[in-house]
């Protein structure tokens, strides 16, 4: 279809091989060296490492229209509104969503969501001593789902995690303005990601991803600049933070 041709960015499209496919292709191509050149050493390391599969929300930027239905769906579940003290699941202000759709001018929309980094710089930045029994700091990764969680009872509200995420990765962590405690880490909605389910344009999928893929763990601004350059031949996004 014509439409396919019009998505030159398609950064995520062809790179979402599962580990099995990757290893299979490696066999077909006749060796790791060839593929290492093609996919980068990190991908190779990942493929042959014993690291568990990582399933997360993946964005096809070429398909995203910036409609923010994903934000509304996420808030509705993860941060339902309270009206007159009554919680209303299914209703929530999109700004509190764990996925944030960054809009730019010229038209580029970049949904940004926690990358579930293997090395969790956010967790490493947390100054709270690991709990003797669980080994967890005030910020920790769930080993089964890879999602990042906060233990509000032990959290100091120091914002170190947010700073680490912002300077090194996506910057999704937004400290609560009053308490400073981290928010907006994707929960995967208990295995049924609402953003993926509700996206009207099929721009989101819940799949196994490779950590070396293009744009993985990057800030929205950086991704937008590259998409704008690919799509429109411009990098001027107005210098907006």
């Amino acid at each position, binding site marked *: 279809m*014509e439409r396919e041709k*019009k998505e030159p960015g398609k950064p995520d499209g062809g790179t979402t091989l599962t580990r099995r496919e990757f290893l299979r292709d490696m066999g077909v191509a006749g060796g790791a060296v060839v593929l290492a050149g093609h996919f980068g050493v990190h991908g190779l390391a990942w493929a042959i490492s014993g690291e568990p599969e990582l399933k997360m929300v993946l964005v096809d930027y070429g398909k995203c*229209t910036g*409609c923010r239905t994903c934000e509304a769906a996420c808030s509705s579940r993860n941060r339902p509104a309270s009206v007159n003290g009554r919680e209303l699941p*299914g*209703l929530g202000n999109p*700004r509190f969503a764990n996925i944030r759709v960054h809009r730019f001018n010229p038209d580029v929309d970049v949904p940004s969501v926690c990358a579930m980094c293997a090395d969790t710089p956010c967790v490493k930045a947390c100054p709270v001593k690991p709990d003797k029994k669980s080994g967890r700091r005030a910020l920790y990764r769930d080993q089964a789902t890879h999602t990042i969680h906060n233990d509000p009872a032990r959290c100091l509200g120091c914002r170190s995690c947010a700073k680490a995420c912002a300077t090194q990765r996506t910057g999704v962590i937004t400290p609560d303005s009053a308490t400073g405690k981290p928010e907006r880490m994707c929960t995967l909605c208990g295995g049924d990601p609402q953003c993926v389910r509700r996206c009207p344009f099929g721009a989101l999928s819940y799949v196994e991803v490779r950590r070396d893929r293009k744009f993985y763990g990057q800030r929205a601004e950086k991704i937008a600049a590259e998409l704008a350059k690919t799509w429109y031949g*411009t990098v001027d996004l107005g210098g907006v*933070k």
Partner: protein
Amino acid sequence: MSGTPGYYGQILDINLSTGKITKMAVPAEDLEKFVGGQGLGMKILWDRLKKPGVDALSPENPLIFMPGPFSGLPVPSSSRTCVVTKSSITSPIESDYHHASTVSYSNMGGFFGPEIRFAGYDGIVITGKAKELSYVVIDDAKVEIRDGKKFKGMRTDAFDKAILAELGDRRFKTVYIGPAAENLVPYASILHTAGRAAGRGGTGCVMGSKNLKAIAVKGSGQPGVADHQGFLAALEKARGALYKSAFAKSWAEQGTARAIVGNSNAGTETVRNYREGTFAEADKIGGDAARRDVWVKDIACYCCPLGCKKSGLTKGKYGGIVHDGPEYETGVMLGSNLLISDMPGLLKAITTIDDLGLDQISTGNVIGFLMEAYDRGLINRGFLDGIDLTWGNVDATLAMIEKIAAKEGVGALAAEGVRALSWHIGKGSEKFAIQVKGLELAAHNIQANQPRGLSYVTASRGACHMSGDNIAMQNRRAMMDSTGMCFFPTFEPALEEPMLALLSAITGRKYDKAEFEKTGERIFNLEKLFNYREGFRRADDQLPDRFFEDAFSIGPKKGAVLDRNKFDSMLTQYYTDRGWDPETTQPGSAKLKELGLEAISRAI
């Protein structure tokens, strides 16, 4: 939160003269009778302007930004904001009042309306006039009027970026004006996201007259609903109706641009200043061509599964432009209407008009008129300040657009609109000055489409193609534009029932089809009362002579022309069916009583 479910029950009221900022309570009765959007905006306008003849550009004229009860909820396509004010461009043939004009309403998509509701308001009313160019920043309950002098004259695309850089937070949703509105061009527009506009009827001009460059809003709240479970169930159905809709899919493909070829084939397109209904080169500027040559990406408004806005990139002489378009209205008014079939040139014109903050429709109409007058030798090149404004000439069109926005030379005349321009030129040019009540007609031509002619002459804001081709449609649209939901998805018939169920669940009032239309009828009649009070009568509901004299000379509808007697008797029937006096068009007391407007109408 007010006592009325689904609403906050408060409007943010900003007086730019005094700097006073208040939260005005909205009577529950008004919410019930006028809903939101266009309707509630109209009621506020009526309450504020207690007498006819108030100058639209005076500080008293309120500029009203209205979301609706759907806004701020995850309802599909609940993206609209209706801007209501008194028109800066219309006027009656005769009136006792010097500054008589109609109401004006202009509806835009995007993210602004929902954000107003997140911030805790059912609408924003701006009155007064700031001493210097200013802008307003609304962050929940915190509201500030800030100095905007440094933005003076800034075009809208640059401003869209500059204001967010200034605010340092991209989550602000903004509306703003360009140089055309600062220069008080009567058909200046208000822009949002640099490519969406409340274009028609001079909303931008009114904003400019208040020295208001922009409004930025962001909010952390959430409007509630009357029946939570009912709302969720209806929401599921509404999403189901649209996500699976074949119509929605096809709409997403080309948006309104599909009609550029379709209407040309049907003989209902605006071509060559309304002289023809068919454009031989329509396929060069239509949806297929755009998809092939310029569109890079589909863009959607808040929670909308249609995504009819397109982001285009041009190549060649006018290369490097990134902008929405062509849509049907923009593509036809600047394309077939001017016999421009060069896609990059067309996109350049559309982009420039938005960048300067002009209404696409009025601007295209005015330039088409000038091209015809020049072609006929009624004006010469000197009149046009040396611009060789021939049919299809892109560079001349671009030069004229700049002149209009700057009100420079011939641009100062052209800026007053096609009617004033024809009065100035004379020589019988009124016959092809295509306007009603002073507002320019849009991209739907009518020699072969009499019902659309009805929409143009009876619409409350002057020649409006969206008003509706018959009474039922007019009532439904007035109501639709009062809800905050976009009109386009309602082309999917499966949406109607869940949409009514949603509205009922949100407001706690039972809406069926009849009640929906009845409320729209009330709104439409209030607009009529306003216009009637200003002095608009049946003689103002008149089409230019062209439609009765110049039969199409090409296309499938060759020979089509309107019949004056038929059109007149259709109008008589219309007023009678509306319950209005067919001679004066005054709404009858029986109708007003039926609609609960008798107390209001006593003011006349």
